[in-house]
């Protein structure tokens, strides 16, 4: 029993010691809704590659919200107690997230939203991509590929997260222009490849031969649908399938003509958010470091919103994008 206690103490001290710091650094927390799918992992990796993090000026701590709004709330409370200098926020729920922002705002900690929206006017700034636009683009792509008529199914993100709300809006707006296209099913697979696989399998059984196209509100789900189609012995190239994000497997699938996708610039969103956070903390003397600002105006003062452009993935640019991705994720 004594030995067990000693081991526990030593372990705890090692953990504690590894994280104790003596030098002054900006402490910035990144509260992300979940790390099970690739996109948020890319976002987090890109954040850690920011020059100011690499140089030690900023210490980033990533808080995994585990797809649970109350976990994110608790994480914000903990960050307030520790006097974090700023918080980057990717919320799981557009409404519940407002409470977390309020908690930080009451402690005068700037919160920069990134990638996913939250219904709060206490956000210092927001940097993200226009999800209505991408929803629009992917639905257009599928509609055109099936010749403007037929049946499609839509795989959605977690209901209530801003990306799901806005991409659905874009999907349906685009499809309204094609009265001969019918949406057979529209259900959530929670951004998950595994859930989408099961859902697609069931739909293939329920509507044999009737599904003409698949719109996945993100790549992971579109990839799940591809798996289902392949496992059903069907020719995946006969099904126009669209996704969003540009995760690695999706880019490979695009290369193989199995789907189309639109790249979401995780590096721009993550590093841009950190730049904005440092702008809020240090002031206008701070110069942004992300490559993203080459195309977007940094401006004289901080705006409430910054838009990161989408990059449609085509046979022309997919090889370049794949090697950039390799460079980002090399450990």
């Amino acid at each position, binding site marked *: *029993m004594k030995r*067990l*206690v000693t081991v*526990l*103490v030593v372990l*705890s*001290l090692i*953990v*504690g*010691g590894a*994280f*104790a710091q003596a030098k002054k650094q900006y402490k910035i927390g990144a509260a992300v809704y979940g*790390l099970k799918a690739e996109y948020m992992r890319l976002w987090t990796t890109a954040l850690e590659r920011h020059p100011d993090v690499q140089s030690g000026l900023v*210490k980033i*701590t*990533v*808080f*995994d919200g*585990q*797809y*649970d*709004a*109350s976990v994110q*709330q*608790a*994480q914000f*409370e*903990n960050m*307030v*107690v*520790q*006097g974090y200098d700023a918080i980057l926020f990717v919320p799981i*729920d*557009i*409404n*519940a997230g*407002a*409470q977390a922002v309020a908690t930080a705002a009451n402690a005068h900690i700037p919160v920069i939203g990134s990638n996913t929206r939250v*219904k709060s006017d206490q956000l210092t700034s927001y940097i993200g991509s226009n999800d209505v636009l991408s929803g629009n683009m992917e639905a257009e792509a599928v509609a055109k590929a099936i010749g403007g008529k037929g049946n499609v199914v839509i795989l959605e993100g*977690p*209901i*209530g997260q801003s990306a799901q709300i806005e991409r659905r809006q874009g999907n349906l707006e685009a499809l309204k222009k094609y009265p001969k296209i019918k949406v057979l099913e529209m259900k*959530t697979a929670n951004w998950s490849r595994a859930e989408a696989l099961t859902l697609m399998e069931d739909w293939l059984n329920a509507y044999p031969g009737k599904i003409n196209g698949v719109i996945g509100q993100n790549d992971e789900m579109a990839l799940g649908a591809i798996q289902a189609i392949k496992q059903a012995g069907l020719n995946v190239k006969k099904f126009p399938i669209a996704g969003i994000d540009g995760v690695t497997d999706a880019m490979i699938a695009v290369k193989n003509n199995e789907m189309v996708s639109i790249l979401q610039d995780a590096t721009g969103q993550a590093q841009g958010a950190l730049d904005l956070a440092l702008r809020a903390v240090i002031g206008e003397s701070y110069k942004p470091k992300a490559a993203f600002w080459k195309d977007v105006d940094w401006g004289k003062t901080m705006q409430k919103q910054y838009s990161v452009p989408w990059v449609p993935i085509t046979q022309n640019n997919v090889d370049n994008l794949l090697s950039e991705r390799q460079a980002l994720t090399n450990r």
Partner: protein
Amino acid sequence: MSERERVSAKAEMSSRDQGKDGEARLKGIISEYGIVLVFFLFCAVLAFASPYFLKPKNLINVLRQVSINGLLSIGMTFVILTGGIDLSVGSILAFSSVVAASFVSTAFPGRTEAAPIGIAILASMGVAAVLGGVNGILVSRMKVPAFVATLGMLSMGRGFTFIYTDGMPIPKIDPSFLVIGQGTIFGFVPLPVVIFIIAFGVAWVVLYKTRFGRYVYAVGGNEKSAKVSGINTKLIIFFVYVISGVLAAIGGLILTARTTAGLPQAGQSYELDAIAAVVIGGTSLSGGQGDLRGTLFGALIIGVIGNGLDLLGVSSYYQQVIKGAIIVGAVLLDSFRKRND
């Protein structure tokens, strides 16, 4: 042996005994209070490792964050004491949470103005009692093993939650409701903590000062003997599942108020933390043995570990490994203790 020799031998024996006595007493204290000591040990280590741990604001945060799991764990204690288990508390929490939200939110279809929060509270505790009651009937009357019955309810409860909300979160909760999760007493004690303390106090009285409580232990210890001695074992078992459900509903009320929305995804895997708290606290999964104090400190330990590791910036992946190790470690410790007794 001469008289003098006998006296001195006795004296020698008694001084050796006194040494053994002290050792036995120490063992006794560790056996009684082991879990409390471990808790304070963790706090000491964390206080040393992070300057923020002992800050009053942080300690209050920890208590607030522990209150929901604490409520679930109290109910879980009652269930496990009877030799059962309740895997459905997370789903019951979610369902009662969205039911409450639907009464106090104008965003819920068909509601033009928020109902009084009393109605929302009663409705949510009511549905939870019903679901808990179903568990209770399945286990006590239909002889479905608790694991299976509550596993089924885990799935059904979650299903009901999605059906009721059509899969959508319920935002725009009336501000008067939010005080449950965000209000304070005396300006600094969070209401969730007060609710937990009251629930704990009531549970304590029920378990230790009433016949019902004694019967709970009896049923868990040996159901057959309990029945033979005239205890209505079916009723006892039925009620512990109702208690577990109702406490999950109270947890759900706090959760809804804290997140300002009724979220159908809420509470996933919460049953695991509740079971962990009970097990770490020393309650035996086979029933009849254990106590609420153990559960209290089990829940506090889980909360403190989570909070401490957050303060130290340890990634969630390591937190999961450490939590699992503690659960197993606690049970091992317990079995060593029992072997030495």
